[in-house]
């Protein structure tokens, strides 16, 4: 069962990242997916933040590939926004854990 859930989570994460590459809604959807699949609230929150962090790392990869990474570290507000947005949307999305019928698990 855990293996199945992991597989579903992995597919959901990849699909959400694909969506996030064309629209920011993918960051929220990814948070929703990992939040719903998490077994507890703390894990859901961690998974939401983790998804946001993963999206940011993938984003860094795209900047690196385009030769834009060095200047990114000096981008000030743009840097902060691009870090904050995926973490915030991932964490908010993870609230979807509470939509589960057993959402009150601790």
């Amino acid at each position, binding site marked *: 069962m855990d293996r199945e859930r992991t597989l579903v989570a992995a597919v959901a994460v990849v699909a959400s990242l694909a969506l996030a590459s064309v629209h*920011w*809604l993918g960051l929220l959807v990814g948070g*929703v997916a990992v939040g719903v699949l998490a077994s507890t609230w703390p894990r859901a929150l961690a998974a939401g933040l983790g998804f946001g962090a993963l999206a940011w790392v993938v984003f860094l990869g795209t900047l690196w590939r385009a030769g834009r990474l060095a200047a990114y570290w000096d981008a000030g507000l743009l840097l902060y926004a*691009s870090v904050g947005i995926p973490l915030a949307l991932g964490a908010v*999305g993870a609230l979807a854990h509470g939509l589960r019928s057993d*959402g009150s698990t601790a």
Partner: protein
Amino acid sequence: MDDVDSVRRGLIGAVLGGVAAGGFFTPASTYLDQFAPLSGSVWDSTTNEPPGRVDSEYGDATLQYDGHRVPRIEADDQAALYHAVGYAHGTDRLFGMDLQRRLMRGRLSAVVGDAALDSDRFRVQMDFARAADANWTAVQNRNPEVADLLSAYVDGVNAAREDQALPPEFELLGYEPAEWTPEDTLLLQLQISWTLTGSFGSLRRSVLARELGDGFDDLFPRRYDHDSPILRDGVGTAGASAHSESRDSRPVSGELAGWLSGFESPPGVGSNSWVVGGEYTESGEPLLANDPHLSLLAPPVWYQQHLDWGDGWVRGVTFPGVPFVIIGENDAGAWGFTNAGIDVLDCYTYETDGDRYRYGDEWRDFETAEHTIEVDGADDVTVTKRKTVHGPVVEREGEEVGVAWTGFSATATTDAVYAMAHSDGLDDFREATRDFDLPTQCVVYADRDGNTYHKVTGRVPVRYTDGERVPGWQVFDGSAREGEWRGYTPYGESSWAGFVPFEDKPGAVNPGYVGTANQRIVDDPDDYLAESYSPPFRGERLYEVLDDWAESGSMTPEDMRDLQRDTLDTRARRLVPRLLDAADVAAAGPPFDALPDWDYRMDRDSDGALAFAVLFDAYREALYADGFAAADLSEDYWPSDWVTATLDSSPWFDRDETPDSAPAAMRTALDAAADRLADEGWETYGEYNEASLEHPFGQSFLNYPGVETDGSPATLNNFRRDSDTGSSWRMVVPMSDDGEASVVLPGGNDGDPFSDQYHDQLRAWADGRYYGFDREFAGPSIEFGGGD
């Protein structure tokens, strides 16, 4: 329990839905659309790379970048070549191009709000856009070949604009640029011409003479007392000046003169260039050097490009938006420009009667047109454009002047710039120079046959009042038909019949060596040329060194680079001995106690340089601040550094508001400088002399990092910290085939702020290092061709 679950789910669903909806329908949507990682438009705009292949109806061309984002473009056909140039400019500099045309068209407020409204009002009234339209009509009639190349270039810009994500600045400002047009290119040509020749000096002098009275002549001499004109020892035209001066017309207020002066170029715009004949060089072939001093911006005002069309090549810099290399080198020779400082703008006042103005014995209607300025975040503003026989009328708070400027007429400069870039030696280049109607420049040229050349370019007006020639250093009474220009048609094609003939303008063929640094061109020209020239600090230093080196007759490219890096400040050489006599610098402690043994070099680690810089600032303040404030004149009106360095006995010191004497002002300045140094905490001249070059958009992440550098406003190694102007391109080109041609930009060639080539040359520029003009082009490439 079910109810609790339902409520919880409902709340969570509401939160998620609310966040999603908020992301779509609140101001947050803009930030998410722009900055969300992976999908944000700002990131898309910077990670988007040009395609490897572009359809072009103009034929085959190849564009390939080097490691500094400098493109080499190869094509057999000229239209294919310049189409690819347009693509390169559209790829690398589209935002800057759009910003400049917005500036000149008076459309900045539409994207930045009412902060730019004054600028827009001025430029709409001046109607630069109509002048560009007239220019395009004239180019098509006069030179269809060049017009076709401009069209090909424009199509290239627009292809890049359509093929690729827009630069990040457009995403941040939230607008899309309109199609690029040939008129836009000609408008940018006008922009640089305005920067170099748009001067309301006559208005300022009129105000100053009235407000200052006694002392005006000492503070604002028409001619600086020096022996280093560009053309010395009778080279070029010379002879007695035979002008009569007419009376000043009706007075113009300091407010209007000050407002208009705000639309001139910032202090410090100028240039150095020199050419040395083979008899004075180690190789036996000429050497040429040029470094234009313009606003230093992020990204730079220049764009470097190398073009190859099979049986010829050219490399150098142009203004993004202009297809042809303006300063550079080709297979036959090399050339550069400095600003000539010639007076090509006059102001006129009128007797008016509502919608009419008197012109001689008749009353004429102003030519009028309504123009709406769009303002972001505010109501539109309507401006009435008015024109007289002389040109546009600029109005502020009910006061107005008419303006005549050579740039309002169509010119053949575009033809000339193209012809220079494709010239085949001295004779060809001289022919091209004839067409260089605007701006007035000192061009220097060297070819691979060993020739050298200097010439003043541009149309130089001759003014007539009552049939007599008069100088242009006054505000003319337009109603009395003073200061008329013969053969001039604003917003149309001029015959230039009454202007100074090409042959009569100063110049020299194979002059041995000639040094131009915006100083006086010749001592006694036959024709009135200028109200005043730049202080000759750089010019005299340039000739001092060239004269010295000429004796050995073995100058090298490295010598030329050393001369461009020269930091000896002749202001200091004049002023410091007087300071040492007047004040006890040893008692002031470091760094002032370094002044007695200082070598006058403005090097970043020099104590003497730091002491002199802050002392000079304080001395200007001591000399002028109170006296000018009492006359209700701002700092913008203060005299030049030449006057500051040389002013000694003068009626200026007899006023209640001014210091008792120059030495008294020096003592005051020493105390003030010490206080300022303590406040600011500068420990080296480099800390004081930091280049902090800014992007016009004003967002900190777009600005360049600050870099300490050498030089001052008065040294050949030129940098003015107060206005961020200085050497905007350094180029040293030998005519011998030794591969030592070298160049550097103050920043980088790529306008993308996230690119590694956004400011990859900045440190080298600040440190006085160069890159070889020869490049290896192994970077990204684009193939053009195959289109219908």
